C-alpha cells in the first residue's frame, strides 16, 4: 500500500479513536468532575486514600479500568498502552470537556517513567501496577538538609548488609511524605569521587521500621513538605533500581519527566479570584478615561504584562524551533529563572494592589479569594529556590549558554 494510503487509513483510525474516547468520556465523567480542580479535591491515591466525593471515586475507577490513569504505559502494567498520537487525542478530548485528572501521584509523573527505562521486570510489574491503580502513593527523597543546591553532596547512607541495605540519614522537601506509602531515594553507597558515582537509587516502603516523617510548616501557613528520617532502616536488595552506584542516571531520567508532567496539569488549576487588572481596578479605581488612579502601579503592571506575554512567547519560540529543527539549546535554560522571577514580581504587584486587605492570610473579614492571593505570594517565594535555585540557574546559563568558564573553585 502506498504511503498516502497508509496515512489515510491511520487518519481514519485516529478519528475513530477520538470519537470513541469522546463518547466514553461523555458517558463516564460526571459533570462535577468537569470543573477546574481545587487543591482539596485532587485524588492522590495510596493506602490511606479518601475520595472527596462519590463522583470523584466513580470517575477515578472508570479511568483506572480503562488504563487512563497512565494512558501511555503498557496495558500489562495497568496502563492503556496508547501510542503518543492517541494519548494526545485523549488529552485533547479531556481538555475540551474540562475533565479533571483522575489521579495525582509522583509515582505517575516521575518514578514510573524512570522505572520503565531502568526498572527490572519484577519492579515494573509490582510498582507500575500499584501506581496506575492508585494503590500506592509515592514521595520523592532527593534533597537533604545540608546539601542545598549541591544535590550530589547527599549523605544518607545505604550500607550493604548482604541481603539488604541498612539506610541511615534524612531527606527534606519530600512533598506530602506524611501521606505517602513508599519513597524513592537517592542514597550514598560509595565514597568515591566524583560524588555522583557513589549514589544509588532505592525504593523504600515507608511502613518499614525506622522510617519517620514530620511536616515542615511553611511561611504560607501550609505544610506541603516534610522531612523524612531513616534510622537503621532495612531495605531489601530487590529494591535497588538500576546499577549499584548508578543512581545518578536514574535520577536524571526521572527529573526529565517532572516538569513535563507538572506543566500538563497547570492549565487545570483553579483560577485566582480576580485577575491582576481586575484586582488593581477594584483596589485603586480608575479615572474617567479608564486609567488606574495609581500611575506607578499602572506603569509597573504594564511592564509586568509585557514581560509575561514575552515569556509565553519565549516558550512558543522554543516549541516552534523544535518543530522547525532550528533548536537553540540555550533558550530552555532561561525559562525557569525568568518564569519564577516574573511570577514573584506579579505576586508583589498583587500584594501592592491588595493594600490593607493583603496584611493577613486568615482574617475572615477579607474574602477568601483575596487571602489566597496572600498565601500564594508567600508560597511562591519558594519558586526561585525549589527545583534548582535561581543562583544555580544563572550559573548554568553563564556556563552553558554564554560559555563563561567557571574556574576551578566555583
Amino acid at each position: 500500500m502506498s504511503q498516502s494510503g497508509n496515512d489515510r487509513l491511520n487518519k481514519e483510525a485516529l478519528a475513530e479513536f477520538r470519537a470513541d474516547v469522546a463518547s466514553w468520556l461523555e458517558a463516564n465523567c460526571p459533570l462535577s468532575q468537569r470543573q477546574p480542580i481545587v487543591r482539596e479535591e485532587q485524588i492522590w491515591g495510596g493506602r490511606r486514600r479518601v475520595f472527596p466525593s462519590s463522583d470523584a471515586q466513580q470517575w477515578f475507577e472508570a479511568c483506572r479500568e480503562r488504563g487512563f490513569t497512565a494512558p501511555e504505559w503498557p496495558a500489562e502494567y495497568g496502563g492503556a498502552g496508547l501510542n503518543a498520537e492517541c494519548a494526545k487525542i485523549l488529552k485533547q478530548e479531556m481538555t475540551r470537556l474540562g475533565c479533571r485528572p483522575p489521579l495525582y501521584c509522583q509515582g505517575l509523573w516521575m518514578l514510573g517513567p524512570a522505572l520503565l527505562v531502568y526498572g527490572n521486570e519484577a519492579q515494573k510489574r509490582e510498582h507500575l501496577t500499584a501506581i496506575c491503580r492508585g494503590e500506592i502513593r509515592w514521595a520523592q527523597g532527593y534533597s537533604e538538609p545540608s546539601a542545598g543546591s549541591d544535590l550530589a553532596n547527599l549523605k544518607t547512607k545505604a550500607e550493604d548488609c548482604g541481603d539488604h541495605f541498612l539506610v541511615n540519614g534524612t531527606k527534606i522537601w519530600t512533598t506530602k511524605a506524611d501521606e505517602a506509602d513508599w519513597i524513592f531515594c537517592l542514597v550514598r553507597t560509595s565514597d568515591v569521587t566524583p560524588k555522583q558515582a557513589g549514589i544509588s537509587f532505592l525504593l523504600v516502603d515507608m511502613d518499614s521500621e525506622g522510617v519517620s516523617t514530620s511536616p515542615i510548616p511553611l511561611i504560607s501557613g501550609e505544610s506541603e513538605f516534610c522531612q523524612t528520617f531513616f534510622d537503621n532502616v532495612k531495605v531489601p536488595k530487590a529494591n535497588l533500581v538500576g546499577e549499584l552506584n548508578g543512581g545518578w542516571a536514574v535520577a536524571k531520567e526521572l527529573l526529565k519527566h517532572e516538569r513535563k508532567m507538572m506543566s500538563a496539569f497547570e492549565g487545570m488549576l483553579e483560577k485566582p479570584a480576580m485577575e491582576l487588572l481586575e484586582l488593581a481596578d477594584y483596589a485603586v479605581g480608575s479615572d474617567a478615561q479608564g486609567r488606574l488612579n495609581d500611575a506607578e502601579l499602572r506603569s509597573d503592571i504594564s511592564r509586568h504584562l509585557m514581560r509575561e506575554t514575552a515569556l509565553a512567547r519565549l516558550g512558543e519560540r522554543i516549541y516552534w524551533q523544535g518543530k522547525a529543527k532550528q533548536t537553540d539549546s540555550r533558550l530552555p535554560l532561561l525559562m525557569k529563572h525568568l518564569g519564577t522571577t516574573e511570577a514573584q514580581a506579579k505576586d508583589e504587584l498583587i500584594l501592592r494592589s491588595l493594600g490593607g486587605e493583603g496584611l493577613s492570610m486568615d482574617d475572615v473579614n477579607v474574602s477568601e479569594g483575596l487571602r489566597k492571593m496572600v498565601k500564594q505570594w508567600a508560597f511562591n517565594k519558594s519558586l526561585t529556590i525549589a527545583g534548582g535555585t535561581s543562583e544555580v540557574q544563572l550559573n548554568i546559563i553563564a556556563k552553558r549558554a554564554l560559555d563563561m568558564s567557571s574556574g576551578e573553585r566555583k
Partner: protein
Amino acid sequence: MILNEEQAILRETAAQFFAEKAPISQLRSLAGASEGQGYDPQLWSEMVELGLPGITVPEAHDGLEFGWMGLGAIAQEAGRCLVASPLMSSVVLGQNLLLNCGSEAQIATYLPSLMSGETTATVALDEGRFFNPDAVATSDASGLLNGRKDRVLDAGQSSYVFCIAEQASGDRGVALFASSAEGVSIDSRRTMDLHSAGSILLDGVPAEDTVWLAGDDVEAGIQQTIDQATIVLAAEMMGSAREVLERTVAYLGEREQFDVKLATFQALQHRCAHMYCELELAESAVSAALTALDQVAPNVSLLASSAKALANDCFTLISSEAVQLHGGMGVTEEMDIGLFLKRSRVCNQLLGTSSYHRDRFARLRGF
C-alpha cells in the same frame, strides 16, 4: 546614628532587655492567644518600668526628654526582635497626638496614666484600603460620631482611642473616647507578621462620651504626629532590616555548598554588599529625619517621606533577598526569616507606601 551618652546607654539597655525578654520566640507564642491580643501586657509593663513611654516627653511632663534620636534607637532595637508592644500605637501615636493636639488640661488628665502604663491608647486614622490621611470621612456632622477606621494598631487592647474625624465645624479634629464607649465596635485581628491591627466601626458614638482635643493648632498637631510616627516606624524597620541582613550574612558564612562556604561566592558577596549599601543609605535618611525632629527643623515632612520610602524599599529588598539566600529554610517557619519578610510588607502599608511618599515628597517640593 550619633547618640549622646545617655542615649547610648538607653540603647544598650533596650537591646539587652529585648534580647532577654522579647526574643522572636516570645512573639511566636502570641500566635496561640486570642485574635485580638497583639502583645503581651506583662512585657509592656516591664517596658514601662524601663521608662520607654517617657523618652521624648518633656521633663515638664515628667518625661525623660531623651529626644527622638533616643526613641529612634529604641525603635531600632525593638525592630531587631520584631517586638510586638504598644510602643507605636500608644506612645508614638497616641501620647504624641495628645501632646501635640491636646490642651494643657487634657494633657494633665490623660498623660500620666498612659506614661504609667495604667492605660494605653491608639490612634484611629486610616480609612479604606490605603493610607491616605487627607481623606477622612468619619464625621461628627450628625452630632453623633460615625465612620469606619482601618488598620488601628493594637485596637483590641487599647483603653482609649484617639480618632481623627471631621468636627461639626467642618475642621479636622481628634475625638477621644474609651474603647468601651457606646457605639464603638472593635474587630481586632492578628496580621501575618503576628502583630495586631483592627477595624473600628463607629455607629453613632454619643457626644457625651467623646472629648475633642483642644490644643492651639490641632491640624498642625495631627500632621506633626503623623510625621513623628512615620519616622519612628522607619527607624524600627531599619532595625529589622539590619537584623535580617546580619542573620543572612552569618548564615552564608556557616553554610557550605560544593565544598566551600556560601559567603565566598562572589555573586552572593556583591548582593550582600549592595544590600548593605542600601541599608546604610536608608539609615542615613532615617537618622536625618530623627535629627530634624530633635531640632524642630522646618523640613521634617520632607525628611519623613524620604525616610519611610527608603526604609520601605530597603527592608523589602533585604527581606526578599534574605529568604532567597537562606534557600529552602527561608520559606519555612522553622526560621524567623519569613517573619521579617511578612513584617516588611505589613510595614509598607502602615503610614504610607513608597509610592505614596514619593508622591508626597514631590508635592512638598513643588513638582
